[in-house]
């Protein structure tokens, strides 16, 4: 079937037309953080810039004061910061072997994002950042932590920086939503009910 299909396409395709080429990349312009916040807000995502001296653990506890089943995949200084927060003493470990039952229990996941896109407020999570591919979707609440230096203007620059690394990656712009019932916006359709992006 493959060869028959390809032969038919070869027979019927129009004369060659050129690819337009790569779009010219844009450098990051002024007020990147506030513009990123504004875009993210359109998708009901909350952006929290972390000030110098502020503790990530305190920010997250203020954001989600109720005791939740939590997990994170931060490393280095940010992980140490979290380790010192009281509500982060009991952290679930999530990786590709985590069972569906355990995934279903996670209520808050804090994941490191590689970059943020100013034109739409979306952040990129690679497979290594999530542990299990379902986690960014199955968790009740999601927080992504993005370095300020990794904000780019548009999707052109984002794709230029990202490599397809042979696994899974996703741009996430906000909490899960739908307007399928009489065009009324409902947040928290099937995936997370909330999304916060912390800029570090």
């Amino acid at each position: 079937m493959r060869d028959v299909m390809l032969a038919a396409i070869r027979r019927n395709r129009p004369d060659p037309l050129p690819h337009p080429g790569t779009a010219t990349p844009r450098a990051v312009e002024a007020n990147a953080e506030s513009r990123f916040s504004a875009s993210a807000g359109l998708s009901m995502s909350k952006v929290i810039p972390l000030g110098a001296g502020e503790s990530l653990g305190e920010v997250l506890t203020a954001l989600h004061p109720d005791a939740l089943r939590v997990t994170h995949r931060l490393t280095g200084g940010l992980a140490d910061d979290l380790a010192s927060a009281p509500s982060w003493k009991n952290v679930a470990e999530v990786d590709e072997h985590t069972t569906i039952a355990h995934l279903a229990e996670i209520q808050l996941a804090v994941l490191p994002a590689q970059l943020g896109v100013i034109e739409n407020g979306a952040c990129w999570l690679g497979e290594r950042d999530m542990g299990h591919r379902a986690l960014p979707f199955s968790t009740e609440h999601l927080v992504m932590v993005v370095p300020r230096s990794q904000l780019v203007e548009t999707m052109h620059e984002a794709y230029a920086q990202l490599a397809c690394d042979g696994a899974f990656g996703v741009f996430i712009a906000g909490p899960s939503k739908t307007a399928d019932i009489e065009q009324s916006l409902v947040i928290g359709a099937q995936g997370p009910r909330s999304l916060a992006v912390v800029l570090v």
Partner: protein
Amino acid sequence: MATALPHARAAAAFVADEERTTWHDQALWHVREKRDKAAHGIPEWEALRQRASDIKDHTLSRLDEYLEQFEATASAKGIRVHWAADAAEHNRIVHEILERRGVTEVVKSKSMLTEECHLNPYLEARGIEVVDTDLGERIIQLLEQPPSHIVMPAIHLKKEEIGDLFHDKLGTEAGASDPQYLTEAARQHLRERFLVGKAAITGVNFAVAETGTVTVCTNEGNADMGVHLAEVQIHCMGVEKVIPRWEDLGVFTRLLGRSATGQPITIYTSHHDAPRPGGEMHVVIVDNGRSEHLGREDFRNGLKCIRCGACMNTCPIYRRSGGHSYGSTIPGPIGSILTPGFDLEAHHDLPFASTLCGSCSDVCPVKIDIHEQLYKWRQVATRSGHMPLAKRLAMRGGDWLLSRRTRLGLAGAAARVALRLLPDALVYSPANAWGRARELPQPPAETFAEWYAANRDNRAS
């Protein structure tokens, strides 16, 4: 009305409920307005459309090469690539994959291709339950209706109707119609199905040849909830979904959300590069008439479509007749130029469901010449003898009347006299189809020709 074309008949039934038609019209126009706001927010919007159009034109001119490249790059990462010449083969392939794993229930996120192939009834007849997980799709699945819009499948339904449906099928409170409450009920109901974790099917928004990546865009996250918990994931695509390069995703992801619903991007833009550890990942590439359509010089541009639905949201006919009036998997303007290619006899009426206003072409993110194709399809349809007799006679009569000035002059004079003298009951008789919802103009005291003849020597100097 017996001589009216199928769409016209179905549309007449739809507009009989004037209030509901106005509601439907306004709901869709509102989405058009959101699209405009998003598009105007990008100064380079028109250049972006042109770039997307050029990428698609280029891709179609080397479609076989890009499909082969996709197969190679995808396979190298453990993705199993299948080729289906038609709907029957697509269904057979999907069924085989599921049967081999002993799957009895599969979750499916939105895929117009699987709708086109009628996959659900095929699987159900063979003992596999299909749960459509996009909220709008689940609603119409429970109602046993086809989708009426490719992006907003339940746009034709009111929340009270959905409330009644959920009360019946999901046990929600009788009379409850709050969208938040109903969506929460659906969330819990569908979550149970995701957690079964056996098999998931999705559509494909873009398949990148350079990297062998399957890109799926959703707002709900249902495609990902299904796929990442399942042992087997299957992605179904038409041959035209392939795009050349990873960087091309930048162009299309900027256009898709804005064109479809006015969002700067869909909430989730997922890139499936390889099976998950211990899992199986399949891609089924489907022809089903597309390679033949590629050979139609006047109509091949329809294959550039990225299924955003912007043409439907803007079309005055679609807005005021609803997707079900078209009787085709893909309704609206794009459906009216693609579907006649697959079956002209069954769908010869669709190119006539249009005023040729051209709004569709204006909003199409990949610059398909939709309204021009509608016009060309009308000629194809007429030449192949599919026009009802009454319309053929009317067209021939009109041709005769309009081809001589004297005939037109006499007919015009007679019409003006009739309008002046005849009582309304006769002018607006059932035979006057034009006058059914329109007031005819007041006849002028003299025609322009008469005025000119009288005044031609009074030119201003």
